[in-house]
């Protein structure tokens, strides 16, 4: 008798559970159908136009278009220099196409030796979306991170868990930070303090000292060396609040695709331990359109180990 009652109870429970599952599943489906799309994805976002949804000032691109720069670098004002920085910001991005590349990073220490890794990166700058997947070393192949605007996830394939990180984090305990993989927006993050002129190798440069206007950037003060003719950044010194040199970045080779310029060789030297240096080198660059699903957590999980 008790057994029959138990079976009946289980049957009723199973029916109830089945109905409950259907209701729950239905609720989730309805909710998902109504949910607003996230910033990633072509053509979506609230701002409209090519910059929609990435949180930049509305006239960020437009104000730059017709700006007349002085012919003589000695005549540059602080505002001219800020517009020059803005021009380098805009030209470091691909607002009209996606971009993918393979980048190798080699970190050198005279005592500890040479460490190398290689990543595949995917960028959709109009949505401020970025995906990086480790290719080498083989033992860490598939690890990666996804960033869309200010949402950044790192994926740990061992625990199958996503975690948030910040743009300030140092990448791989090297002289490179996560922010170095983002499209440049120095003209938004910094204000010009002073400008001078100088020479860097074969190039005449305008040197601007800038101060951060928010605490989201990893370096409160920077000094930029910009070649004025083609408006490309050659060198950036990054300082602490006490003006101690923390890092120097050299951009020694560029690739130009249309209006965009990518620094394909970037050398970073630690300011506190000069023997510590890293070089980031781009290869296999493409502006071929990327599928939307590349900029999802699901894709990052699938391509990891």
């Amino acid at each position, binding site marked *: 008798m008790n057994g029959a009652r138990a079976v009946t109870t289980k049957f009723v429970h199973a029916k109830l559970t089945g109905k409950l599952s259907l209701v729950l599943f239905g609720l989730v489906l309805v909710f998902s159908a109504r*949910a607003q799309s996230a910033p990633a994805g072509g053509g979506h976002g609230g701002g409209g136009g090519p910059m929609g949804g990435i949180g930049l000032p509305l006239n960020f691109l437009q104000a730059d278009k017709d700006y007349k720069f002085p012919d003589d670098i000695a005549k540059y004002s602080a505002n001219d220099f800020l517009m020059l920085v803005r021009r380098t910001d805009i030209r470091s991005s691909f607002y009209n196409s996606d971009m993918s590349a393979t980048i190798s990073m080699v970190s050198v220490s005279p005592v500890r030796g040479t460490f190398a890794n*290689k990543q595949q990166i995917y960028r959709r700058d109009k949505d401020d979306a970025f995906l990086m997947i480790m290719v080498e070393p083989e*033992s860490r192949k598939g690890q990666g991170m996804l960033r869309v605007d200010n*949402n950044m996830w790192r994926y740990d394939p061992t*625990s*199958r868990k996503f975690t*948030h990180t910040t743009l300030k984090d140092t990448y791989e305990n090297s002289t490179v930070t996560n922010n170095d993989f983002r499209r440049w927006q120095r003209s938004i993050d910094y204000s010009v303090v002073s400008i001078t002129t100088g020479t860097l190798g074969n190039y005449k440069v305008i040197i601007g000292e800038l101060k951060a206007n928010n605490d989201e950037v990893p370096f409160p003060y920077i000094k930029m060396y910009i070649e004025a003719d083609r408006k490309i950044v050659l060198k950036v010194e990054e300082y602490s609040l006490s003006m101690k040199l923390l890092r120097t970045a050299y951009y020694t080779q*560029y690739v130009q695709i249309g209006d965009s310029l990518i620094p394909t060789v970037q050398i970073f030297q630690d300011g506190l331990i000069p023997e510590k240096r890293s070089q980031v080198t781009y*290869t296999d660059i493409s502006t071929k359109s990327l599928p939307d699903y590349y900029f999802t957590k699901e894709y990052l999980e699938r391509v990891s180990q």
Partner: protein
Amino acid sequence: MNNRTIRRSIPLAIVAIFALFGANLWAQTSSTPTSTSVTPPAVIDENQLFGGSKDIVTVIDPATAAAGNVQLVKDTKTYPVFLISGTAGAGLYGNYTPVGSGSSDLQTLYGAVNISGLEFDYLPTKDLHFSLANDLLAVPNQILAASVTGYADLRMSDLVRLYASGAFNYDPTSYLSTTKYSSPAFSLVELFVDTQINNQIFFRLGKQRISWGVGYWYKPSDVLSLSAIDPDNPTAAREGPFAFKVDVPMKLNHLMVYMVPPVTGLADSSSIASKYDLVVGGWELSLAGYARADMLARPRGIFTFTGAVGPFDVYGENVLLYGSDRTYVRPGSTPGAYETYRVEDLPFFQSTLGIKYSASYSNGLSYALHVQGYYNGTGYADSSILQNAAARTAVRNSGTYQANDLTQAGMWYLAGSASLSGRFGEGRNLTQVTGSVYALRNFSDTSMRFNPQLQIQVGDQGGRATFTFSDLTAIGPSLSEYAPNGNKTTPAVTVGILNDAVDLQASVPILLNSDFSVKKVQTEFSIFWNAVQY
């Protein structure tokens, strides 16, 4: 399996490893680039960097870039690839029990070999990857601790693959990790296939790890994981179920459905779970539901969130259940006897909230605070009844027993951590000092554990020396949640010299009586010269 069996199996394992990889040693390919063009210059000379005859800007036709990859650096990588990494050393290992020694206590001093993180990676082609990682502590006539993990990642494409991983563990003294393996244990960690339909619906089918929830020490929404969270290593991977997962990404939002087939051979032991992740601004919200046909695990709705409020990172999990999963125990009508019962017709609520704050400054000062509270409506208001062995046995012997009936059985919990780090000096005279502590408290059985730690790192790179002092302490009655062995404190010191080429470890577990008088003092110590570092 006894030690003799392990001793027999280790040589076989070593032979198998080299049989697998040895034939490909000749094909070893370093991941270090062969071209100097990707290596930073030995000396930074700005005139050389920007003074060459070649223009630093290379122009690429947009149509060419849009059609495919433009190679700027020659790819010299070839397959197959065989890689080895990790360290191996030799030295001394021993135990000594100066106070309260019994016949089972070790009084030993061995010459020993220590293998740490020795990993072999073999890739016959770009899409096939076999990996084996080993940790081992061996003395002349036996293996004291061993851990071997391996996986095979066999891809047909980016999104279609077979993945298998397994592990072997033997670690009776918790030398290699915080988990104790009293006898050798083989386990299947994961075995699944990934596939997809039209790059829109993704499937993962098989035994897999599943990590739900945003909590750190407490994750009431992590209903699918099969093992409990390790309080001393909350981020450690946990065993997952055999499940069919369907995943539908919608930009950053995300719909997941898990179907867990029967786990007991009976059809009604199957369950279903679904979760929807929604990204709103800087917040990620998740709505989820779970139900099991036989109702042994009760149906529930879940809401979790993670985001930031000003400078604080905030997360939370909320679970509403109809009935409790737990099999409870209470004193029976006969003195000394216990009876079990379940509560299946009342709503229960679980909620956890965590707050994190961290700051770092360019002068090297950094600090972090993290606190998490947990209300577990399905727990005992007073869980001290589980400190009685007979009560625990009654739960284990009940027909509805589940592994988590005896874990996180309290109703109120609080956990937290704090760290403070400072940097002094520069270059080779760099000194980094970090103080940290974590603590967990179960208010329902009055047990707690905490671990203060001080780490001093002197020098940089190859000349670096690291000194670490810690004292993991558990306070509470025997069989309580955070002090299962009663009051116990374990001061420990670890010293790594010459960038860990020489590694010294010593710990002194001290068992205390309930009045905190010393009951037993043990010591465990080792010193190894890690002469081989791949």
